[in-house]
C-alpha cells in the first residue's frame, strides 16, 4: 500500500466521529410524500376541493390521469431516494415508468377526446403553468435537502427523478382544486408545466447533488 494511502487512512481514523445512519429510502419517500400531503391539505382549506372533484368525476380518463400522476409521484420519489444511496442499482430509475405511461396515456386520451368534441379552446392556461411550478418549488426544495443528506452518485439521474416526482405531485395536487372542464389546451399546459419542472430540476439539481 502506498505511503500516502497509509497516511490518509490514519488521518481518516483521526477524524472519525460517530454518525447517525440515514433513514431507509422508503422512510424518506414517505416523509416527503407526507410533506406534499400537508401542502395539499393547506390548499384544500383555502380553495376547497368541490370544483376539482367534480372535474375529476366528469370522465373516467381524468381519474386515471390523476391516479397516474399520484403513482408517478410516489414511485419517482422512491426511486430518487433509492438512487441517492450508494450500492443501489440504477435500474431503480425505471420504477416510475409504468405509472408515467398511465399518466401520459390517460391525459393524452382526455386531451384527444376534448379536442375532438370541443376543439382547442384557444386559451393560454398560464395559471396552470404557474400553479404547477409554484407548488413544485417547496416540494423541490424539501426533496433536494433530503437527497443531499444522502449521497447520490448519479446526480443527473437522481435529479431527473426528483424533478419528475415534484412535477407529478404538483399536478396531482392541482387536479384536486382545478375548476372548469378538462379542455385540451388545459391538459397540454399541464404537460408543458410538468416538462418545465422536470427539466429545471434535472439541470439545477444535478449541480446541487454532485458529490
Amino acid at each position, binding site marked *: 500500500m502506498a*505511503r500516502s494511502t497509509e497516511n490518509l487512512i490514519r488521518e481518516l481514523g483521526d477524524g472519525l466521529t460517530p454518525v447517525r445512519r440515514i433513514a431507509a429510502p422508503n422512510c424518506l419517500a414517505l416523509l416527503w410524500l407526507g410533506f406534499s400531503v400537508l401542502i395539499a391539505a393547506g390548499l384544500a382549506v383555502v380553495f376547497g376541493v368541490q370544483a376539482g372533484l367534480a372535474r375529476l368525476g366528469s370522465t373516467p380518463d381524468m381519474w386515471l390521469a390523476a391516479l397516474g400522476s399520484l403513482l408517478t409521484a410516489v414511485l419517482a420519489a422512491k426511486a430518487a431516494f433509492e438512487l441517492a444511496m450508494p450500492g443501489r442499482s440504477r435500474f431503480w430509475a425505471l420504477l416510475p415508468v409504468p405509472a408515467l405511461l398511465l399518466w401520459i396515456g390517460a391525459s393524452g386520451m382526455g386531451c384527444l377526446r376534448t379536442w375532438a368534441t370541443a376543439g382547442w379552446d384557444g386559451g393560454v392556461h398560464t395559471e396552470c403553468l404557474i400553479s404547477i411550478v409554484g407548488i413544485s418549488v417547496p416540494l423541490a426544495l424539501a426533496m433536494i435537502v433530503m437527497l443531499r443528506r444522502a449521497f447520490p452518485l448519479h446526480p443527473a439521474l437522481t435529479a431527473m427523478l426528483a424533478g419528475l416526482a415534484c412535477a407529478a405531485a404538483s399536478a396531482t395536487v392541482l387536479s384536486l382544486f382545478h375548476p372548469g372542464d378538462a379542455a385540451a389546451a388545459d391538459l397540454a399546459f399541464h404537460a408543458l408545466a410538468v416538462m418545465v419542472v422536470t427539466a429545471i430540476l434535472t439541470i439545477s439539481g444535478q449541480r446541487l447533488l454532485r458529490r
Partner: protein
Amino acid sequence: MQAGILSLESSALRAMGTSCVDRRDPDQADRRLGGLMASAQAGDRAAYDTLLRESVPIIRAAARGRGVAPDAVDDVIQETLLTIHRARHTYDPGRSFRAWLRTIAERRAIDQLRRQGRLRSREVHDEAAYETHPDTTPEPAAELDAGLCQAIDGLPEGQRQAVEELTLKDRSLAEAAQATGRSSGALKVNLHRALKTLRARLSGEEG
C-alpha cells in the same frame, strides 16, 4: 515475554484464519466488513482502520476493472477512501458492504477516467520534459512571495507535496516518487491540479 509472543502469534494466526475463511466464503467476508462498518458508524476507530485497509484491494480491483491506468489507481483508491468517509452514514448494515463500496469505487474510477480524458484533450504532454530538463536556476522557497507560500500551504496534501518536490526542491519525478511514496503519474496529476488551483487563487478567480 513468552506470553506476549504467544499472543502475537495467536492474533496473526487468527488473522490468517479469518482471511482463509473469507476467501472460502465471500458472503461471510461481506458480513464481516459490514459489521466493521457498523462499528465505525458508532465511532470505533480500530474497526474503521481495519475496514479501510481491507477495502483497498477491493477498490484497486474495481479501478482496474474499469480500465484506470496503473499509475492513476492510487488516486482512485484515495478518492474512494475519502468518499467512504463522507458517505459512511448511508451504509445500511442489513445490505452488502461490498456492493456499497464497489459502487463508490467505480464512480470514482469513472471520474478519474473523465479527468484523464479531459487532460489529454487539452494538453500536449512531453513525458520526458520533467526528467531531462530541470530548471537550472531554481528560486529558493525563502524568496518566494508570501502570498504564493500561503497559497501553497493551503493546497491539499498531495498537491502541496507535488509542488514542493517537483518545483521548489527541483527533484526529478523518480526522486519525488521515492520521497513521497506516490507514483510518478499521481505526482504529475497532482502538480497539474496544484498549478491550476494556484493560478486561480493568485489571479483572484477563487475565494
